[in-house]
């Protein structure tokens, strides 16, 4: 039983007279509890696919079915509702609100959903504890390290217990040691039965996943399942 399914997914942009097709009929199916890495060079369409999977964008044609719901024809508000309840985003740049504490940031998805303050506090503390940051709940982002910021972002993504955790280059702004820590956190979350999709162009990171989908020029080039073969120690490669 698949959690999400893409059937002949096409995404094209109208650029004046030209039509730029970014995805040319992608077929993909992800089951609940899977840990998938989507890889590909820039321009391969992986960001576009990620946006569609995250319901930030809709396909030009084809079907995207999430939790038995056909997403393609939904309104903006319905998409927002899905994002809020079913998808947890983790971004490369963390996207935390600088003026608010870690806890406030984690609470954001609940505030607009009208969740009462006491419940928000409880849930956000639980999520922060889950990523090992309970002690830092009242710090602002600028008082936190890069790894801690990403943990806050992950806690925010987890707060509504989403169906999928969608991470876009989650270690792109971190040094490799911190990156490995974050990846270990994803491992733990996967062990707790979360479905995780990571978009990355780094092989090291992709190796944490149990399945690697490679895109090239808007098509699925390969789709491999493998036993996890992440290095026991993080590689010494430094991303700048």
């Amino acid at each position: 039983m698949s959690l999400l399914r893409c059937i002949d997914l096409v995404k094209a942009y109208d650029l004046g007279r030209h039509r730029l097709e970014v995805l040319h009929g992608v077929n993909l199916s992800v089951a609940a509890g899977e840990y998938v890495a989507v890889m590909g060079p820039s321009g391969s369409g992986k960001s576009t696919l990620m946006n569609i999977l995250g319901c930030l964008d809709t396909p030009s044609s084809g079907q995207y079915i999430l939790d038995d719901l056909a997403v393609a024809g939904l309104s903006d508000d319905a998409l927002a509702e899905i994002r809020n309840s079913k998808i947890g985003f983790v971004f490369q740049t963390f996207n935390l609100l600088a003026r608010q504490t870690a806890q406030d940031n984690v609470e954001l998805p609940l505030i607009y959903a009208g969740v009462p303050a006491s419940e928000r506090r409880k849930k956000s503390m639980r999520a922060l504890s889950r990523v090992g940051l309970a002690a830092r709940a009242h710090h602002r982002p600028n008082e936190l390290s890069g790894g801690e910021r990403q943990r806050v972002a992950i806690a925010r993504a987890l707060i509504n217990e989403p169906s999928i955790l969608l991470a876009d280059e989650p270690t792109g702004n971190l040094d490799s040691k911190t990156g490995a820590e974050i990846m270990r956190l994803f491992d733990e979350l996967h062990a707790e039965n979360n479905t995780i999709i990571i978009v990355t162009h780094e092989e090291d990171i992709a190796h944490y996943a149990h399945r690697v989908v490679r895109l090239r020029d808007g098509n699925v080039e390969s789709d491999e399942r493998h036993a996890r073969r992440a290095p026991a120690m993080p590689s010494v490669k430094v991303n700048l």
Partner: protein
Amino acid sequence: MTRLRSIVYVAWRYLGHRRLATTVSMLAIAASLVLVIAIGLMNLSVKRAAIDSSLRYPLVIGPKNVGVVQLIMSTIFQIDRPSGTIPYDVFEAVEKDGRVAAAVPMAVADSVRGYPIVGTSRAYLDSLPIGVKAGTIDLSDEHDAVLGAEAAYRNSLNVGDTFTGTHGLTGDEEAHHHEEFGYVVRGILNESGTPSDTSIYVPVESIWAVHAGHHHPHDDHDEDEHHEEVGDHDEDEHHEEAGEHDEAEEHDDDEHEPAWGDRRLTAILVRPASPAFTAILEREISTRAGVQAVDTARAIRRLMTYVSKGERMVEAFSTVTLAVAIAMVLVTLVMSLNERRRELALMRSLGVRQGTLGAVAMAEALIICLGGVIIGTALGHVLAALGGRLIQTRFGIAVDPWQITRMETGAVILTLVAGQVLALAGMVFTARMNVIEEIARE
């Protein structure tokens, strides 16, 4: 309900992040509204007082060569000091005239600490639509006095108390005190919100007596001389200011100007038996040397055109202030929305509806405008209450500080409508944003 609450909560938090800009915007709106309210109330009160008075006495007779507006200001509002006098026989003639229903003599020369002593007749007091608070309306003796509520209160005078006047209307301590002529308080009028509140009414004869200086057997010689010296000097000044050459020529007197002792008046208020007589009487009386009659209503209309001109200018000014204030809110809002483009995009990715984000922007604009309106109207009316007290004390014009003027209603509606428009601008701004581009931006 919880959704609305969370929208207001988030909007409030955003405003809290920009406390200075929010406060300044609110205060700018509030300040313009204070201006609008103060001006509106001032205008309304002056107009109302003027119209009330003009209805009771459609004609005012005063000396020629005195500006019509000045004549009205000095007789009806007792604001301006009356300049020049007319002989009492004008009054006698007018009173006898069959076309006149009522005529009231007025002689104003002295004051008690700035509150004018108005020499008049008992008939005038009876015609005032104000009852007595204490004592009786009695001006049968030269030394009787009936005080307006404010004049009595401010001078701590009660029925039975005695007081003396000071020459001139300024309440100047240096001015000559008519200590030789005392008045006894016979009655105190109710508060009315009219110039009567600040007036001290005495029989017109007493004004003549005070200034004649020969009526009092008790006066010793020294005092007499003193009075005359000072009197001379004062009258001289008066003469120069008023420039009343006609009258000086008319009367063959030791002094350059007719003495009060010669039964002079500053003005006569006249109610014709029929409105039809107003114009005729006005024309006839004005033919007498040194005397003019003025149609009160017409003069007040003229006075009001000056006031209206000022009013329009101030109205324009306050509209501009308000527009600037609203523009400020717009700029603050757009700047703040621009500043948090990324944040808004993040919210969208977190599943917040576009409408909700727009509603937050809307709430921010409305909170600022509403806050400005609440602060402005509250402050405006409180200031009007304080300022109105002062105006009533000084000029006897009642200001109802809680009344809502047309100008105020207009300004409040304008502000709230502008707030809505700004809010819509905020909604459009958030709607036009491309979430993916924003969120992907490094």
